[in-house]
């Protein structure tokens, strides 16, 4: 087993809302190995973005509460304990994140060039006065995401570009300087299928070329299937299932995963399954037991009262559901991973 690059241990995040604290991320464990591509799948609002923004520490610290005992280890160093300088270094050299919404991710009042130059200027890779060097780097980055005429793009404002272009610019900007880990938050969801496909291919190429690690966040099982090695399925702030890609599609165990897979419409036809109707429970007063109980066909009294642990249902296949309690041993904290 290769080294863990990012290791999220027992992370809990609460948002302060006027209704009270909303526990949007509930004690999750997740890791990425060096050069590994993992996927984080879940319906909208289940806390995927929150988790990853926590990794980047870009959430407004005033608006959140982080659970005690939460650890975000990057290369062995706890991101949560980092000081401002170390954080800047982390963001400049080690991790970068591609935002979910290309339309909102670029500052509307600066040109693409200005924004890219700023990133380069503060990356520490260039001399402050090396305008030309930075410009070349920006052009190269734009080139690498296959946009023609980089000079025109550099002088454009975000609103003058199409969604696909903006998304590519986001990718280009986050790859301006070499990083070890790339977090892609649903790149392409806002775009058309044909463009989305291109973006995914692009991402995959860029990651594989430089042997980077990738966390791919999406709500489409189809996307992760084509892109990543290992999948975490997230539901309402919990990670409910975690295994290799092939295994997941062959043998989905958690009722939620099963339901999710079933309701993806197939090109082969044959109708669509009934789906899992209902909604994610409120985060302010989350259910005491399993957070999926109200939508689960196998729900028992116990599910309502007690939180299921994480069980190794098969080798390299962790599930968080009482149905598999007997199949494998419950893992202690930190061992919920496939190892």
């Amino acid at each position: 087993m290769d080294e863990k690059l990012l290791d999220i241990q027992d992370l809990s995040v609460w948002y302060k809302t006027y209704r009270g604290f909303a526990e949007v991320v509930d004690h999750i464990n997740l890791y990425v190995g060096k050069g590994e591509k993992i996927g984080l799948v879940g319906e909208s609002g289940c806390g995927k973005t929150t988790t990853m923004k926590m990794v980047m520490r870009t959430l407004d610290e005033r608006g959140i509460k982080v659970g005690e005992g939460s650890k975000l280890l990057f290369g062995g160093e706890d991101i949560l304990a980092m000081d401002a300088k170390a954080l800047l270094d982390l963001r400049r050299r080690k991790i970068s994140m591609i935002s979910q919404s290309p339309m909102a991710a670029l500052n509307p009042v600066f040109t693409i060039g200005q924004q890219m130059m700023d990133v380069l200027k503060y990356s520490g890779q260039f001399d402050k006065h090396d305008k030309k060097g930075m410009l070349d780097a920006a052009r190269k980055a734009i080139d690498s995401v296959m946009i023609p005429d980089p000079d025109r793009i550099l002088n454009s404002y975000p609103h003058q570009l199409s969604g696909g272009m903006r998304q590519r610019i986001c990718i280009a900007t986050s790859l301006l300087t070499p990083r070890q880990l790339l977090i892609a938050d649903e790149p392409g969801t806002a775009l058309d299928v044909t463009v989305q496909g291109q973006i995914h291919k692009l991402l995959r190429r860029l990651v594989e070329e430089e042997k980077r690690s990738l966390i791919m966040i999406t709500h489409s099982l189809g996307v992760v299937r084509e892109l990543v090695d290992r999948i975490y399925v997230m539901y309402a702030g919990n990670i409910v299932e975690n295994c290799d890609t092939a295994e997941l599609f062959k043998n989905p165990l958690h009722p939620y995963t099963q339901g999710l897979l079933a309701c993806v419409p197939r090109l082969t036809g044959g109708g669509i399954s009934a789906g899992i109707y209902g909604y994610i429970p409120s985060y302010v007063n989350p259910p005491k037991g399993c957070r999926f109980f109200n939508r689960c066909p196998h729900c028992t009294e116990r599910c309502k009262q007690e939180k299921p642990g994480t069980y190794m249902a098969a080798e390299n296949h962790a599930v968080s559901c009482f149905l598999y309690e007997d199949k494998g041993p419950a893992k202690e904290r930190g061992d919920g991973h496939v190892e």
Partner: protein
Amino acid sequence: MSNELLTLKNLKQYFPVGKDRFVRAVDGVDLTINHGDVMGLVGESGSGKSTIAYTVMGMYGMTGGEIDFEGEVFTKETKRKRSMKFRREAQIVFQDPGSSLNPYQDVRSILSLPLKVHKVVPKNEIDDKILEILEMVELPADFMYKSPNSIGGGEKQLVSIARALCCNPKFIILDEPTSSLDVSIQAKIINMLIKLKKEQNLTYMFITHDMGVMRNVSNRVAIMYLGKICEIAPTETFYRNPLHPYTQMLLSSIPVVSEEDETIKPKAVECVGEIPSPVNVPTGCSFHTRCPYKCERCTKEDPVMREVEPGHTVRCHLIDK
């Protein structure tokens, strides 16, 4: 053929932008929808799917062409006027459930508007009718007094569908009814739509960009690109044998979750480029900028619709060869 419910002939809808420039949102569309059909309309964003729907419904005064709804003909001259019969029998469900319900009305008043306007039932029976309709879409009766703000996206879309059902319509246009919902909820809505179609004897025009959904609901499919239809075929034929390069591109780019699905995807074409701006439509075949098979002819001459087999028409020069 009396089986035709809606026929569009050379429908055109341009929007002026600035001086002497137009968005050719819909640029000469011929389409026939038969009674009992679910006509799927697929295309990338900005290809003019919604515009067709809105033009048919009479939200815009069309630029050219003809709409024939059960013998009633609407042209440029009739402008946005629609007969009461049309308004009752043709309904639309919008793309965005968030904006299609008035947040300051409760479900009851939302549903009672069409009932009142078309006097579907006497005044004192409106509440009963509403309950009946809610039951049809499997919403609990206490939804009647809920406000759109307090219900989820899927339920909002169900209410929109319920509203469309109020006047016992024949024809419903569904404009991407599930695109903003999660897959798990999408499944429920689509199943509901299929059920309703059977029960109520409806005809749908189903607009979507999800080829997977399309496969499962429609019996005929039309693919749109830049305001024009490039391929129409019965669903079976279509997935078995897509002919237009764009159709192939579309199909090939869909992420799927199983091996069987993988086999359906054409492998030959690769996705490149983005859909050009409808203000500057490329000359000749509008797809030539992205087409892997493009030749001289494509840049000059706009291909016409050609029937390759019964019910399967394609707009591509490749077919001639």
